[in-house]
């Protein structure tokens, strides 16, 4: 939370709270439970990302907290005060919607002032606070424009400004970047980060993009079909995912179904059809059990000689990515593996691959349901 | 359940005050084109009697609509129509269904000497109303024929000559469907007299010559337009050269510019006029105040000065039903129209030839049905 020299003088400060406690909140649509009981305690000033593939219940969770959806069960407490029975307009949270949901008939200034007007804040005070927020989001010159006249990035800043001008204890954001193109997304991410840092907002951020989540959040909550798969800091999740599902989400594109030959104090030897190498065990895995081994593309290396190869694969598709090649290869067992290498590889080349045991994570094989999602989280995204 | 056609209101009072308790709105329904003749008089009445009428509305329609409309109003107990201006058609159907107030009781109060004031032929027409309507305009009608002198050098003067002419000029003689056309029905009702049929009053049994003649004539006729206006337009346009007409239809369309002034009119030798009239009737179920206002209005229309206005632009030439109203009393514009577009011989012909009433409405309907069946349905 260090202010840099360029930051405008801080004029706003969110109403801080100590903790927001979600206790077993859940939500069902008819027979389908979209969100299984979720427990989470958010500390004031934290930036929390809710991460998961499409349909896993992220929006449901967010809307339930906002009060836009009634809860099926559970309670929400803000510093000990029960708030889940209040309608959204009484909870006083801010929300940034996926497509911003700016009021198209109101100017930027009036969009931002809307909430203050609803709260019957005096004219002068409104004026002052809106101007301060406009400064903060650097939209002073655009204050008189209608949202339709702004670019996507500017609109997004208006949406954020509208949410934070009320100095809400909590800001909820539902995939605010998913409508933007890649370059703008990067810029906006930086902007959100900056505003959060300057303003000390408590933020609950929904996304299905792990990179976004990793780069923004203090803590991540990974959801899998309405259930929490793992909660932790970005590096915890990135380095030590607790399941193949989370690993797949964290950039371990190769998930191999193998068998644990031997397990020994955090290290395991895994084998399969023509495959044999060592890996690291994080959770309980017993020797002889089916396992899933997660390896990042950049951790699969082309071996110098055949001797130390973990397994062999035939390059099928080779893509040039500048300085390195992205190779899709087929193992003898017919699984597809992805690797990155600076070496020039041609389709059809036979490759001997190795992997650093510390970089190969071994998990007990998940049940079919979760396993399906784990194979390629992107497909569901 | 179906709305019943019985009149819900009690029968009108035996005697009435001279003026309504408060000025009333008169809703006048005209299904005869009568307003063209009487509207100025009605306006004058309204202007002169604000204590009787506060407002007058006019609606136009067709005769067949009248009975059902009145029945519906009466069944609903909400009679909005105060006065109907009609020809013999809706007069008769309304009488049959008992829709109109019998006015005989009020003759002495509102129409002293009513029958004796009418012209002779008009008085005879007035009896058709059976005291349920007041005859307000009258004319001898026809049958006449109107022709284009540029095409027809000498108009046929007998029915045979007409047949021969039609044969020579197929499609050039036209008369409109009698059900919808004054000249059409006058032509139909006048034929039995011209042809010497056994009973001109009985279309079913007494019109054998007429039906035979029309059937023969039908061979040389292309179409029966649905209204007189269409035949007039055809005459003007040159698609017809000879059409059935009446005194009014000869003068008025030429005065209005629907038909060129150059068209001429002719009569048949030894013709018999089939006279026609229009009536004012008051539906049962109106309030006493409305009844009073209606009667006062009708009485006003029968005054000579009002009657003189009915010379109009010749639509119902001459028009006045009462005695002693001459063209010289008519407004200057009327006089000018009649002198420009009128036929000076009309007055001679009117004194020269006998006059008979139109058939009673029921007999007319029979005649129309027969015409439709024998003649109209072939086209």
């Amino acid at each position: 939370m260090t202010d840099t020299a360029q930051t405008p003088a801080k004029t706003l400060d969110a109403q801080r709270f100590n903790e927001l406690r979600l206790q077993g909140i859940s939500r069902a649509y008819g027979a389908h439970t979209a969100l299984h009981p979720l427990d989470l305690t958010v500390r004031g000033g934290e930036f929390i990302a809710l991460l998961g593939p499409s349909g896993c219940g992220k929006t449901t969770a967010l809307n339930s907290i906002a009060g836009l959806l009634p809860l099926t069960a559970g309670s929400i407490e803000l510093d000990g005060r029960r708030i889940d029975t209040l309608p959204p307009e009484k909870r006083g949270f801010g929300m940034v919607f996926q497509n911003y949901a700016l009021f198209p008939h109101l100017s930027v200034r009036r969009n931002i002032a809307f909430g203050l007007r609803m709260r019957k804040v005096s004219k002068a005070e409104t004026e002052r606070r809106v101007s301060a927020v406009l400064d903060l989001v650097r939209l002073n010159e655009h204050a008189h424009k209608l949202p339709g006249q702004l670019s996507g990035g500017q609109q997004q800043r208006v949406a954020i400004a509208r949410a934070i001008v009320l100095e809400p204890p909590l800001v909820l954001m539902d995939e605010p970047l998913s409508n933007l193109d890649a370059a703008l997304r990067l810029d906006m991410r930086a902007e959100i980060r900056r505003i959060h840092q300057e303003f000390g907002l408590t933020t609950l951020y929904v996304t299905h993009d792990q990179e976004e989540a990793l780069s923004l959040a203090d803590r991540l909550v990974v959801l899998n079909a309405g259930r929490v798969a793992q909660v932790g800091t970005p590096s915890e999740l990135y380095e030590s995912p607790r399941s193949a599902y989370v690993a797949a989400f964290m950039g371990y594109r190769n998930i191999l179904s193998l068998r644990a030959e031997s397990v020994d104090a955090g290290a395991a030897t895994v084998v399969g059809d023509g495959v044999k190498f060592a890996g690291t065990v994080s959770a309980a895995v017993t020797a002889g059990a089916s396992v899933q081994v997660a390896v990042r593309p950049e951790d699969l290396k082309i071996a110098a000689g055949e001797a130390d190869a973990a397994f062999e694969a035939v390059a099928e598709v080779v893509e040039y990515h500048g300085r390195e090649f992205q190779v899709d290869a087929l193992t003898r067992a017919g699984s597809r593996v992805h690797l990155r290498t600076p070496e020039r590889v041609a389709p059809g080349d036979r490759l001997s691959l190795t992997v650093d045991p510390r970089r190969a994570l071994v998990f007990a094989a998940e049940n079919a349901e979760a396993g399906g999602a784990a194979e390629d989280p992107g497909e569901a995204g | 359940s179906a709305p019943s056609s019985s009149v819900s209101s009690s029968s009108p009072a035996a005697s009435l005050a001279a003026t309504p308790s408060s000025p009333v709105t008169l809703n006048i329904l005209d299904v005869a084109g009568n307003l063209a003749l009487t509207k100025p008089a009605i306006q004058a009445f309204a202007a002169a009697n604000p204590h009787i009428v506060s407002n007058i509305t006019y609606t136009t329609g067709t005769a067949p609509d009248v009975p059902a409309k009145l029945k519906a109003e009466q069944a609903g107990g909400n009679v909005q129509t105060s006065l109907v201006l009609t020809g013999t058609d809706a007069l008769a159907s309304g009488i049959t269904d008992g829709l109109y107030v019998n006015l005989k009781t009020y003759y002495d109060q509102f129409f002293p000497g009513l029958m004796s004031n009418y012209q002779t032929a008009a008085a005879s027409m007035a009896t058709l109303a059976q005291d349920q309507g007041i005859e307000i305009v009258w004319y001898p009608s026809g049958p006449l024929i109107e022709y284009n002198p540029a095409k027809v050098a000498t108009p046929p003067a007998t029915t045979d000559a007409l047949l021969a002419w039609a044969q020579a000029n197929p499609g050039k003689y036209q008369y409109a469907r009698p059900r919808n056309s004054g000249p059409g029905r006058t032509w139909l009702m006048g034929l039995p007299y011209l042809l010497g049929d056994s009973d001109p009053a009985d279309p079913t049994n007494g019109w054998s010559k007429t039906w035979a003649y029309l059937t023969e004539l039908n061979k040389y006729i292309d179409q029966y337009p649905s209204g007189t206006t269409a035949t007039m337009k055809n005459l003007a346009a040159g698609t017809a050269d000879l059409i059935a007409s009446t005194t009014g239809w000869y003068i008025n369309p030429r005065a209005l510019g629907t038909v060129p002034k150059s068209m001429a009119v002719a009569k048949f030798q030894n013709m018999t006029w089939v006279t026609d009239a229009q009536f004012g009737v008051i539906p049962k179920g109106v309030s006493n105040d409305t009844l009073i206002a209606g009667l006062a209005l009708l009485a006003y229309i029968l005054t000579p000065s009002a009657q003189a206005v009915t010379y109009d632009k010749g639509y119902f030439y001459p028009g006045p039903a009462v005695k002693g109203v001459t063209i010289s009393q008519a407004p200057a514009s009327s006089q000018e129209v009649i002198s420009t577009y009128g036929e000076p011989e009309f007055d001679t012909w009117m004194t020269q030839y006998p006059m008979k009433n139109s058939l009673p409405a029921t007999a007319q309907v029979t005649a129309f049905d027969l015409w439709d069946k024998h003649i109209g349905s072939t086209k």
Partner: protein
Amino acid sequence: MAAIAQAAGARRERRALRMRPGSWLVWALVVFFLVNVLGVIGSVVLDSVGKTWFSGWTPTGYTTSNYSQAWDEFDLGQVMTVTFQITLLVVGLSLLIGVPASYALARRDFPGKRAVMLLFVLPILVPPIAYGIPLATMLYKVHLAGSFTGVVAANLVPSVPFVVYTMTPFIEQIDPRLEQAARMCGAPTRSVLGRIIAPLLLPGMLAAGILVLVRTFGMFELTFLTAGPTSQTLVVSLFSAATSAGIRTAQNIDAMAVIYTGSMLVLLVIALRFVNPTQLVARSRD
């Protein structure tokens, strides 16, 4: 370079040739249709300012007296007043009834929605005469036939569904998240409706209102069946003038028809400022 230009020229020619027969035929059809429509309108307009016109291409002289005569003869002052009163009332009421209904239909999926939709589509499908007759009968029974109220009520039957069908897509276009966003800003239901939904729907309501105006203005059957002496609209007077007994100059009727069409055209031009021509007949989707 010259060769290229030549080739391009040749290509253009070839394309033009290929388009020819079909296009010509189609444009000929369009022109034929428009010429005939123009003829139909033109005859009436010309006749309405003509003195007499028995035959030939043009009237024998020109005058404006037909208009003043028509105005007096058909009591147009009163008729126009009634027409506008009825039309505006119908527009107002059908918006008042139709807009909330279309909001509910656009926003909610509920058991029986199809039945409600059917209820709103049938009055548009069933010929006005077919329900107009029973409706007139019923109105007589409840003493509303012929009254101003009766005419307005009858005209609501096709207008309300029409508003519903015109408005629904407009409402669907408004992102429900705007309402949620307003709530998140602390707006109670009243403010959400008043400050967010209503202003955003204004163009839609204008469009629907004008379309209902145009349609009610021209609605013949229902008004004809239910109108009384004081509640006739212009179309009905026009029809009566053209069909009822007596001699009328065609010029006067034509003058009246031109007044009618003129009013309609003005309404249409206003309407087209707000809606696409295709929206006049179809549910708007863009």
